[in-house]
């Protein structure tokens, strides 16, 4: 395995055993993150992104969740074998998390500063005042104006963007941050604030050298910050590669769909604005071995209904899973 691989998810399968049947949320995900890089996990809502991330930090609700198969290595250690104590040595120490809803992700009855200070105190042997001071410094670092005052306020007194900054600060309160998992960190924010938060994440990443797993359904966000991307659909990776490869040499019709549903991105002027991919994500309880995208795919042929596509490797990074891929370069060649 590559020396500087920080996180490696191998053949991960996660199911939920609910009263209404078994939901196979993740089915064989492979994903590597190297030290200091930003990897995006992209896909429509409900395709298993958050579940995968929660599997890494042991936050899946068990039951109903069950990890059926697979391994997750962090720094070479198999975290699925961790006990609760070892897990706490990972969460908040090596891996920080940022969630989608800054509104609901901060505890409404504690002051911002106290919440961050509490995280410090879990991981360092320091007093209350010192921890609070460190929290204020961190708020300053995530560019919250008047950090002294803000630290003494409650979440509802802060704006959405400010709350998300506070969440980032909390994720950074770990002693030796290696990875930050940002689960749709900007989805709930409006566009200008989104850009600011992404910018902040990028900057901190350079500063501290942490790796970021960025979960999003928005290809625009991917383009702004990620080095590499994995496109996920109905619990499986369907295409992965460097951002360059995924954006300009994509092969999977789903990637194509995601890119073309971007609102007025100049690079994709060819596409009409906001054509959402027709159809809906299939019922995760009744999927067999077919390609899960078959029911929405314009290229679909008989084979797609019977076999999940084999992996096709194009470059060291770029691979996809599709029987009848789009091929931009070939089409170009053909046209010429």
């Amino acid at each position, binding site marked *: 395995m590559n020396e500087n691989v920080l996180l490696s998810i191998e053949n991960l399968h996660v199911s939920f055993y609910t009263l209404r049947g078994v939901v196979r949320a993740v089915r064989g995900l492979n994903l590597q993150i190297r030290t200091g890089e930003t990897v995006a996990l992209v896909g429509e*809502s409900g395709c298993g992104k958050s579940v995968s991330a929660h599997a890494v930090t042991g936050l899946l609700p068990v039951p109903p969740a069950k990890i059926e198969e697979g391994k997750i290595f962090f720094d070479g250690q198999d975290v699925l074998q961790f006990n609760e104590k070892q897990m706490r040595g990972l969460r908040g120490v090596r891996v920080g998390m940022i969630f989608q809803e800054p509104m609901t992700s901060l505890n409404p009855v504690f002051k911002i500063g106290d919440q961050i200070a509490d995280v410090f105190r879990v991981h360092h042997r320091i007093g209350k005042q010192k921890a609070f001071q460190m929290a204020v410094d961190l708020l300053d670092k995530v560019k919250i104006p008047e950090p002294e005052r803000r630290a003494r306020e409650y979440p509802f007194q802060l704006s959405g963007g400010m709350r998300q900054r506070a969440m980032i600060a909390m994720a950074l309160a770990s002693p030796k941050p290696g990875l930050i998992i940002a689960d749709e960190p900007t989805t709930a924010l409006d566009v200008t604030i989104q850009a600011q938060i992404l910018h902040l994440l990028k900057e901190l990443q350079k500063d501290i050298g942490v790796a970021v797993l960025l979960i999003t359904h928005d290809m625009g966000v991917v383009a702004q910050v990620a080095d590499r991307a994995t496109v996920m659909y109905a619990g499986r990776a369907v295409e992965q590669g460097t951002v360059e490869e995924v954006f300009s040499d994509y092969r999977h019709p789903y990637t194509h769909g995601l890119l073309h549903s971007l609102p007025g991105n100049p690079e994709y002027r060819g596409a009409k604005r906001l054509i959402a991919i027709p159809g809906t994500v*299939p019922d995760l*309880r009744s999927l067999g071995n077919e390609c899960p995208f078959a029911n929405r795919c314009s290229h679909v042929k008989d084979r797609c209904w019977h076999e999940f596509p084999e992996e096709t490797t194009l470059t060291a990074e770029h691979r996809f899973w599709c029987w009848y891929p789009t091929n931009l370069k070939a089409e170009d060649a053909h046209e010429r």
Partner: protein
Amino acid sequence: MTADSSERQNNNETIQEPSPLRETWLRLLKNKAAVAGLIIITLFLLLAIFAPLVSPHDPIAQDIEFRKSPPFTRGYILGTDELGRDILSRLIYGARLSMTIGVISVGIAMIGGVAVGTISGYYGGWFDKIVMRIIDIMLAFPYVLLTIVIVAVLGPNLTNAMIAIGISQMPRYVRLVRASVLAEKESDYILAERSIGTGDFELMFGSILPNSLAPIIVQSTLGVGEAILSSAALSFLGLGAQPPIPEWGLMIASSREFVTNAWWIVTFPGLATLLAVLGFNLFGDGLRDVLDPRLKE
């Protein structure tokens, strides 16, 4: 996340979606507590209806020779009371009373509360203001005290006990119905109906009210249990049923002097009351879980 996934699941099920009523019924049958409650209620209802057929003895006949006999004495399965009356038979006839009291009291509360609440919410204005003030004032009396005071004023007997319980329970229906009328009355479908000239009365009771049916049903199920409890309490205090009526609360009251020597006279009437009320509470809780998706887990 859960919201859109369930939406998706629904989409996949549209092919053979059972009717809403049937779906509710099926979900209810999966709820163990609700089923237990339903069984208990059915049992008591059957006992109530067929009391003359199933009770082994006349509930007020006195067997002087066998007064205060413990259970299983000469065919008195639960024993006899201080006058030699068969406790089991009295309990069965008591079920008849309690079920009737429960249903009538709740009926009074529900009909009155729904009518007032609907009109009040629909028309608003000064009528609504006055109604809400009165409700506030009624709720300023603790429930038990309110029933006691009303009975004290009307005079102590069973009919008045039912009226008192009905009045005391009325405010919750008024509030519940009024709130949902307020929420519904500006909705698109009501405006649409109004625009095609549907009358107020039909809008209120034909279109808006059915939408608040679920919480009303839950509330009235729980209400029957509470009414049974209240009527037993009133009778216990001598403000409800009067002797020799075999009312459960009254039986408990007259058993007070036997705590030292005849446990069965004390124990069984209370157990019957507890069980019946528990039945309605179990069923009502289950209904709420099934009918009110907000509280569902």
